[in-house]
């Protein structure tokens, strides 16, 4: 049952990314281009996603456990450290250069092109490097 649950959640997520326009780098760059011809669409995407998740999580957490697993696994740290902020800064630069974050990049596989393949291969190398630089976090 767990893979079925994972598949359904992934399917909804992928539909959401494509329908919202997040899989189009032009739209993402348009949102990031605040001094140019700014495209505010991503505000609606992020806003709707956060509000829906905020309400959904609180309904779900009324139960003691998830339906198919033993417990809810949530990050517990609340402190800010250099690795978090430095990592977020590197990610932001890569996102701004390409218009791709990991979700839309993977979801765009049905339209795979050379540059997207290069991005995905480098993405995996980046994660491998992060595991090497900061093991067992």
């Amino acid at each position, binding site marked *: 049952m767990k893979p079925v649950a994972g598949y359904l959640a992934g399917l909804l997520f992928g539909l959401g990314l494509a329908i919202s326009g997040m899989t189009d780098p032009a739209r993402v760059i348009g949102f990031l281009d605040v001094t140019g011809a700014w495209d505010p669409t991503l505000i609606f995407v992020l806003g709707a996603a956060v509000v829906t998740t905020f309400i*959904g999580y609180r309904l779900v957490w009324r139960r003691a456990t998830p339906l198919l697993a033993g417990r809810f696994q949530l990050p517990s740290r609340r402190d800010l450290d250099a690795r978090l902020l430095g990592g977020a*800064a590197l990610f932001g630069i890569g996102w701004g250069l390409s218009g791709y974050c990991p979700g839309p990049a993977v979801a765009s596989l049905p339209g795979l092109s050379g540059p997207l393949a290069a991005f995905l291969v480098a993405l995996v190398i980046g994660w491998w490097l992060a595991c090497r630089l*900061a093991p067992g976090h």
Partner: protein
Amino acid sequence: MDLSSALHGLLGGGLIGLAATLLMALLGRIAGISGILSGALFERGSDRGWRLAFLLGLVSGPALLLLLGLDWGNVAPRGDVAALGSAVVGTPLAGMPTMLLAGLLVGLGTGLGSGCTSGHGVCGLARLSPRSLAATLVFLLMAMLTVFSVHQLAGGGA
């Protein structure tokens, strides 16, 4: 942006939120794509099955829209673009060298920073996590600065 872009954004964002809620309700997990994908690649154990299934689902979403012939995804007015594939999944704007560098930075950054737009920006903000709020502000600001800098380097008018 026109009204249909806003509506597509709201509908798509709502679906992303439903997906995150579903994963929490069924498996008790955060729907962070960088964690799910890097975990599926680099961690062994019982989580690999649902993570791989999630990724298959993630790819199935846009593929399903393509199969159904729904010109829904990329709602930006593009004029001459006729191909449905690029209408749903968009087209990379940068060439190979930039995309290699960008992919490396996104992988390294989300690996070190424990999350991306989905894990920090959607699930983390919905959990009211201070770490996710800080990470989201930093990556948004850096992405906006990067786009601004690229445009300046490209000669102002570009």
